[in-house]
C-alpha cells in the first residue's frame, strides 16, 4: 500500500494547483529527510537479516511504499516469503565476489519514476553490501574455527613422534623432524630390548595434515610391531606394519617409504629392510655406501606379495660407523637461485667429524643457510644411529 506522510495529508484535500504543489513539496522534503536517514545509517549488526531489515525500513520511507524487500538465494531477507518472479519492479545487483540479490519494489498506485528507479538500484546495492559483509564475517569465523582445529590436530600429530632416544652404552642416536607446514608425514620410531635397538624411519607421501594423520597410524603400527615381532627381525617388523596400514594407505591413495631395522650392539651389526626410501647411507670414515631399496614403498602392493625371497641387508658396525636415514626434504631443497642441495652435499655433511648430535644439528643449520629466503620445500627428517668412536661395535 502506498505510503503518504502525515504532513502532506493535511493539504491533500485542496483541489487548487497550489495545494497540489505544496503537497508534492512536502513529500519531497520528507523523502529527502528519509534519504538522509538512510545515507547516515551505519548498521552495527553482523546478522544479514537485521542489517538488511534496517536498510529496507528506512528505504520504504524514501520510496513511499511498504512493499519493499530484498531477495537472496530465492528468499526475502528477514522474512519467510519466497520470491515470485513476476512481482513488482525488480533490481538485480551483484558484486565482484559473486554474490547477488534482487530488490523487489511494489507501488500499485503509481509507477516508479526514473529518479526513483535509480534510487532503488542504489538501495539494492546497499542491501547487497550488508549481506556480503555479514557473510564474510560468518565465513571468517568458520575459517578461524577450522584453523584452530587444524592447529590442534597438527600439534597432536607432532606429539606422536617419540620424545625419547635409545640409551645404550656406546650407542649414539640423533633423530629430528621439521615439517614444512605445521605437521608432516615424516616419521621415526624406536624400540629397545636388551642390547638391541629397533628402529623405523619413513616418509608418508604428501605434506600437511593428511600425511601427518597417516604418519601417526604408521608410528602406532611400528611401536606394536617392535613389541610383537622385534625379536624376529626387520622383515617381520616391516610385514607387520604393512598388515596394519596397507588398506588405509590404499584407500587414501597414499604410500609410505620406510626403513625398518635393528642394531644389535653386542653382535656389532645393523640389519635393515628398505621399502622405497632414500637417502639411506652407511658411513664409515670418509666412505659412504648408498643403501638401495629392497622393495617398493608400503601401500603399493602388500608386502607379503613382493617380499618373497627378501634378504635383509646387514652391516658390520665398527667404532665410529653410522647409519643415516634422511628424508628428501634435504636433497631436494633449493636455494633462492633454484639449485637443489643434492645428494653429494648431504654425503659430505654426514662424513664430517664430530659427535652424531653435532653432525645432525650441523646439517639442519647447513640446510637453513643453504635455503636462505627460499621456502622450505618438504618435511626434513634426519636419523643417525651409530657406534661411538671410542666404544662399542666390532674392533
Amino acid at each position, binding site marked *: 500500500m502506498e505510503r503518504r506522510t502525515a504532513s502532506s495529508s493535511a493539504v491533500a484535500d485542496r483541489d487548487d494547483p497550489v495545494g497540489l504543489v505544496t503537497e508534492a513539496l512536502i513529500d519531497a522534503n520528507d523523502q529527502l529527510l528519509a534519504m538522509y536517514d538512510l545515507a547516515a545509517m551505519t548498521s552495527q549488526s553482523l546478522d544479514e537479516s537485521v542489517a538488511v531489515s534496517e536498510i529496507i525500513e528506512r528505504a520504504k520511507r524514501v520510496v513511499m511504499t511498504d512493499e519493499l524487500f530484498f531477495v537472496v538465494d530465492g528468499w526475502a531477507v528477514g522474512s519467510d516469503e519466497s520470491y515470485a518472479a513476476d512481482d513488482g519492479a525488480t533490481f538485480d545487483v551483484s558484486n565482484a565476489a559473486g554474490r547477488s540479490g534482487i530488490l523487489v519494489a511494489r507501488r500499485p498506485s503509481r509507477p516508479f519514476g526514473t529518479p526513483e528507479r535509480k534510487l532503488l538500484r542504489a538501495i539494492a546495492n546497499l542491501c547487497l553490501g550488508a549481506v556480503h559483509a555479514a557473510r564474510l564475517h560468518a565465513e571468517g569465523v568458520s575459517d578461524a574455527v577450522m584453523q584452530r582445529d587444524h592447529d590442534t590436530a597438527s600439534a597432536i600429530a607432532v606429539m606422536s613422534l617419540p620424545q625419547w632416544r635409545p640409551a645404550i652404552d656406546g650407542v649414539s642416536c640423533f633423530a629430528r623432524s621439521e615439517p614444512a607446514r605445521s605437521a608432516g608425514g615424516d616419521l621415526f620410531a624406536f624400540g629397545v630390548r636388551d642390547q638391541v635397538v629397533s628402529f623405523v624411519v619413513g*616418509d608418508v*607421501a*604428501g*605434506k600437511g595434515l593428511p600425511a601427518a594423520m597417516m604418519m601417526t597410524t604408521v608410528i602406532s603400527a611400528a611401536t606394536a610391531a617392535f613389541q610383537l615381532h622385534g625379536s624376529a627381525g626387520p622383515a617381520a617388523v616391516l610385514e607387520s606394519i604393512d598388515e596394519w596400514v596397507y588398506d588405509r594407505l*590404499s584407500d587414501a*591413495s*597414499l*604410500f609410505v*617409504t620406510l626403513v625398518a631395522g635393528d642394531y644389535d650392539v653386542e653382535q656389532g651389526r645393523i640389519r635393515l629392510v628398505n*621399502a*622405497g*626410501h*632414500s637417502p639411506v647411507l652407511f658411513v664409515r670414515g670418509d666412505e659412504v655406501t648408498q643403501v*638401495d*631399496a*629392497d*622393495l*617398493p*614403498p608400503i*601401500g*603399493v*602392493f602388500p608386502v607379503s606379495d*613382493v617380499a618373497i625371497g627378501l634378504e635383509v641387508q646387514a652391516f658390520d658396525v665398527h667404532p665410529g660407523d653410522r647409519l643415516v636415514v634422511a628424508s628428501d626434504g634435504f636433497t*631436494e631443497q633449493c636455494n633462492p637461485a633454484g639449485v637443489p642441495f643434492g645428494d653429494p652435499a648431504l654425503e659430505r655433511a654426514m662424513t664430517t667429524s664430530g659427535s652424531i648430535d653435532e653432525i645432525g644439528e650441523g646439517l639442519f643449520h647447513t640446510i637453513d643457510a643453504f635455503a636462505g629466503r627460499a621456502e622450505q620445500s*618438504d618435511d626434513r627428517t634426519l636419523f643417525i644411529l651409530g657406534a661411538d668412536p671410542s666404544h662399542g661395535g666390532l674392533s
Partner: protein
Amino acid sequence: MDISTRQSDDPSVRQIALVGRFDAHEAPAFREHIDAAIADGATGLRVGLADVEFVDSTALAELIRAMKHCRERGGDVVLLTPSDPVRVILELTKLDAAFTIT
C-alpha cells in the same frame, strides 16, 4: 604442467601426455583426467613422461592410484619413456619394479 588426453587405436586405452613439473599442485588436475578417462570406459592408460622434469611423492601416489584403478578393471598403466629425473626417482623408490615401463 600441461596435460592432454587422447584416444588411442585401442578404444579401451587412453594416451595421456604430461609436460612440465608434476607435483602436489598438479595432482588434482591429473586425477581429474584419470577419473574422466576411467569413467569414459578406459581400462588402460599410457602416460608419457619424457617431458616431465620433476615428480614428487604426491605425483607418484597419483600414478600408483591410477595403476590400481586400471588393474582392478583388467587393464594397466604404462609409463612411456620417463625422463632421466623421473627414471631416477622410480629406481630409487623401487617403483620401477611396480610399473610397466617402456
